């Protein structure tokens, strides 16, 4: 397969380009100097004035791009992409009591949402029951509180779990939440082969970024891989892991770091699963990813395209995957919460629109769009609806979904895709030399890289090297509109009371001997290094609480304290 541009053509363009630079450009520069001395992307990649075929010398179309649904999948994993089916509009939601969340899910379904995505409150995320002292004041605020199977039953009351898929953003306690989900599906009479959805279940990025860790890195990865292995064998429609760059980005990394650290996490997981004796082609098709879509439009698109190409290469060349599906990088995208501002908050609708557009042009499989009020609180109904409508407008009005990978072949986009890829490989090589991501995390390497990048970015904003409308440019003194954002009213104390009452009732009405027995089974299985999923499923069905199961595991595995890194 030949090069896209032959040497002669490149030579000719070069000659003409030099002439343009000498004769035309200076006149223009004399009249107006450029806005800045240099232009850089958020990853600090220098952006040139103009891109031409000269920037893509020796460009081999088939090697770099190929066709959609074919290796290296740069142009997308499906042949027809959004011409066949629009991406899944999956809005992250959940707040308050299980009853509140049930109501919100039904609201979103009635407005055309096609997949559910559950947010849990902080006590749930870090494996504490609502009646734990550390949970005071946090129950039901950032998401829904789930303590036991009873809560999950309420959340899905009247929702057919055989018809809808659910994403659960949960990490250390993921096996417990999945067990609850399956148990409710069992009760609804949904066969296991029909239960579909995703558990985030990505422990490494917790140490790197999101910081909802509980166990030290090795046992954390072990427990997560138990869930993956068990799902591969028992839940054919479940995505057992969503390897997430989103939180890495939100913690302050740049696009290249987000991509590189996410792939390095993925590599670590694949190695662990292969070490368990699993065949790469049995589990690889089940791995899914989750990225951020930030405001630097073209760099984000380049990142998504590079991600697909890199993962395909890793799976094929490093791990010898043979099935095409094993090489697919399927990913969910969320627009960048961190890019939203408290100042002039209605501008956030515009930011989210641009970021969502980048995700679509980057070929995402599903998308969450943030609401304008998120710098303050979880979204109100109105704000969440506007965010959903943003996606619908992109999908059905703009025409951007009508052809596959429309930006391919842009000199800039292809050059930038190569740049992002090359820089990400360098990070991955460094992490490989450290012995993989677990070792890198223990050394604090990615944590430190992110802290440095986020501090540099903040400095650049303060020195007016980067602009944020309403923050350091076009600012307004009187920000009356802030006060006009209608916020969701959460009656936190009421929710907490409901949860505490329910827990009390649960603890007094269940068979506590049976619970103790099931917890003992978990302890013994953990001691022997067995796959914990069947034991956790049993304990959940016996009405053991999330906190009780987590405490049992904490006793066995200990708790992680992070090294001081700024």
């Amino acid at each position, binding site marked *: 397969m030949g090069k896209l541009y032959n040497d002669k053509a490149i030579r000719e363009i070069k000659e003409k380009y030099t002439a343009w630079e000498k004769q035309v450009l200076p006149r223009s520069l004399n009249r107006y100097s450029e806005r800045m001395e240099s232009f850089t992307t958020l990853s600090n990649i220098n952006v040139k004035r103009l891109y031409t075929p000269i920037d893509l010398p020796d460009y081999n179309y088939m090697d770099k791009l190929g066709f959609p649904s074919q290796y290296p999948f740069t142009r997308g994993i499906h042949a027809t992409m959004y011409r066949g089916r629009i991406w899944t509009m999956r809005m992250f939601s959940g707040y308050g009591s299980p009853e509140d969340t049930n109501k919100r899910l039904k609201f979103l379904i009635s407005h055309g949402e096609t997949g559910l995505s559950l947010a849990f409150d902080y006590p749930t995320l870090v494996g504490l029951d609502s009646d734990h002292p550390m949970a005071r004041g946090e129950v039901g605020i950032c998401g829904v509180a789930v303590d036991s199977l009873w809560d999950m039953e309420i959340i899905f009351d009247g929702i057919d779990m055989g018809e809808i898929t659910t994403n659960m953003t949960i990490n250390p306690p993921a096996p417990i939440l999945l067990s609850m989900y399956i148990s409710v599906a069992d009760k609804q009479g949904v066969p296991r082969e029909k239960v579909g959805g995703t558990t985030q279940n990505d422990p490494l990025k917790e140490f790197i970024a999101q910081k909802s860790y509980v166990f*030290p890195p090795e046992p954390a990865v072990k427990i997560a891989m138990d869930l993956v292995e068990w799902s591969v064998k028992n839940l054919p429609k479940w995505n057992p892991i969503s390897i997430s760059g989103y939180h890495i980005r939100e913690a302050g990394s740049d696009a290249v770091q987000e991509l590189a650290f996410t792939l390095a996490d993925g590599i670590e997981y694949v190695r662990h699963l292969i070490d368990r004796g699993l065949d790469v082609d049995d589990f690889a098709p089940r791995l899914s990813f989750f990225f951020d879509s930030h405001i630097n439009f073209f760099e984000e698109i380049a990142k998504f395209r590079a991600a697909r190409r890199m993962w395909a290469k890793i799976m094929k060349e490093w791990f010898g995957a043979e099935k095409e599906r094993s090489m697919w990088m399927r990913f969910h995208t969320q627009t960048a919460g961190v890019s939203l501002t408290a100042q002039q908050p209605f501008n956030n609708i515009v930011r989210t629109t641009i970021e969502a557009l980048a995700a679509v042009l980057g070929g995402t499989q599903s998308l969450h769009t943030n609401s304008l009020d998120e710098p303050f609180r979880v979204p109100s109904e109105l704000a969440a609806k506007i965010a959903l409508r943003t996606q619908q407008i992109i999908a059905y009005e703009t025409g951007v979904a009508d052809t596959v990978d429309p930006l391919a072949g842009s000199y800039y986009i292809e050059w930038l895709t190569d740049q992002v890829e090359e820089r990400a490989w360098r990070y991955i090589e460094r992490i490989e030399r450290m012995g993989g991501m677990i070792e890198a995390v223990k*050394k604090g390497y990615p944590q430190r890289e992110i802290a440095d990048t986020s501090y540099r970015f903040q400095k650049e904003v303060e020195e007016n090297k980067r602009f944020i409308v309403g923050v350091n440019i076009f600012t307004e003194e009187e920000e009356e509109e802030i006060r006009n954002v209608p916020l969701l009213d959460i009656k936190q104390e009421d929710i907490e009371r409901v949860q505490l009452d329910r827990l009390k009732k649960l603890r007094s009405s269940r068979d506590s001997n049976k619970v103790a027995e099931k917890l003992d089974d978990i302890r013994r299985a953990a001691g022997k290094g067995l796959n914990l999923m069947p034991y956790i499923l049993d304990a959940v069905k016996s009405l053991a609480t999330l906190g009780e199961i987590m405490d049992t595991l904490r006793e066995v595995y*200990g708790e992680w*304290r992070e*090294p*001081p*890194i*700024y």
Partner: protein
Amino acid sequence: MNIYKLFDDAKRGSKRSLGRLLSILESPSNESFRLLKEFVKHGGKSHVIGITGIPGSGKSTLISKMISAMRRKGYSIAIVAIDPTSPYSQGALLGDRLRMQEHSTDPKVFIRSVSTRGVKGGLSLAALSMIEAFDAVGYDKIIVESVGVGQADIDIMNTAHTLLVITMPGVGDEIQALKAGIMEIGDVYVLNKSDKPEAAKTFEYLKFALETGELEIKHGWTPRIVKTSAIMGMGIDQVVSIIDEHYNYIRENSIFMDKLRDRRLFMLKLLVESLFLDNLDDMYRSGEIEELFKANDYYTSSIKIIELLLKKIRKIDNS
């Protein structure tokens, strides 16, 4: 605020009062000298334990676990956390506390961070003054922890009654490299992270170093080597009981009191240095030195400056 009242409240367990006393001690002043006088009267009883370790050896986690074990034995514990964060535009970012925060609310545990001070010896002086305060207030054990690099760290570690050196598997060469420092004068060597496969080899290396006399035998005490895994909670009780053993040993000899005297002498030297250097620095900055400078006679100029310094220092009233 009356300093004697603060001291009384601190003795009665007020963390706020003790916290304030420690701030007063940070630089020499009328008040700090009065306090030190009081402290020496009341102190001299606490067991000072120095803990140092190579970076990455899991020192903070180990100390946190040791605190739990020592608390079970009923000891009250004060921790002087010397933070390695390098000075930066004269500011500092202290994070050592982070690993011990779970003990923060224990009424019998007090944690205080110290970072590099402006002048030479300032860090050591601050740390030693804090030890005097904790001693006077009546803490049973005072743990001083640092990374053990740099002269100040070594000086402080030298004043401890009992010195723990924490190392980890696979660092034989680093021990060699650090030999000029304090690595060879520990009373207890803790091989942490000994759940790692390379632990056996490092353990053998340490034993060999002990047999060949590379690790110093001080005052007739043969250093002990203990294997631990802080994260798994393994070997912690053993470390704590060896520390007690060493305490009994130095108590039975005169070593405990000798060490106390050495520590106070060293602190006196640091105080004198600080008084001179601080004032000299002020004189230099304010231009006073320039006025006294006779270009042709460095000797006379020096004597004049020293006399003036002395006058300034005498102004610190020590009634």
